[in-house]
């Protein structure tokens, strides 16, 4: 490590992965808790592909390689600096994802539950509005439908975290 690099202002083990493969939630939780006796609370968020009442056959997730990891990493580091976490893992998948399959996982571990809940919630709000991923819908009838539009609700969710 560069001796002149600033020390990060948090202690949490932060891990960010952008991958085509699925993930195993129990294994990701174990990575943050095994061999430790100081973790009191683990919150996970899993985002799954819905079929939108039968309308969709799949989602195609496009991403900006490099920036996707970097931007999620910046959000994760902000969360780790803001809450007293012991660990934070974020995994986002790309490529074709079928209804019922996993898209994204956040695991936040802390001594106490409030920090773990808030950090996971914060991560998802900013991941939605800042991480460079785009969803294209494939229709059940086989026709390729359009790109999912960003929701104003996601911007207002993210705005909840701005400190006054």
């Amino acid at each position, binding site marked *: 490590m560069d001796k002149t690099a600033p020390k990060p202002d948090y202690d949490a083990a932060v891990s960010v992965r952008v991958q085509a493969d699925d993930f195993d939630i129990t294994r990701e939780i174990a990575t943050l808790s095994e061999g430790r006796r100081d973790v009191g609370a683990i919150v996970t968020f899993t985002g799954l592909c819905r079929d939108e009442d039968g309308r969709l056959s799949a989602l195609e997730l496009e991403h*900006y390689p490099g920036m996707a990891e970097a931007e999620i990493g910046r959000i994760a580091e902000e969360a780790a600096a803001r809450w007293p976490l012991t660990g934070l893992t974020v995994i986002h998948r790309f490529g074709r994802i079928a209804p019922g399959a996993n898209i994204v996982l956040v695991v936040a571990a802390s001594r106490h539950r409030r920090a773990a809940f808030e950090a996971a919630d914060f991560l998802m709000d900013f991941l*939605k509005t800042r991480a*460079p991923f*785009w969803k*294209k819908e494939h229709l059940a009838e086989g026709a390729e439908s359009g*790109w*999912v539009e*960003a929701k104003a609700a996601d911007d207002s969710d993210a705005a909840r975290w701005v400190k006054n």
Partner: protein
Amino acid sequence: MKIRYFAWVRERVGLEEEEIELPAGVASVSELMAWLAARDEGYAAAFAEPEVIRVALDQFHVEHEAPLGGASEVAFFPPMTGG
């Protein structure tokens, strides 16, 4: 300078990425968008509503007013819908 396009911006431009020589007088993101929009119909369609386009310089989000400075990579894309 490398330019990258994603999602429907990529589809309308018809390219994933390209290398360009910055013309004189194009110093900011918004000036680059205006210059690209004038190239052909595909670019014009991609940048028809410039206010909805998001921009990253060297993989950091920036506003349209940002100067291009010495950035080596500019990316244009719609609002993000991951998560």
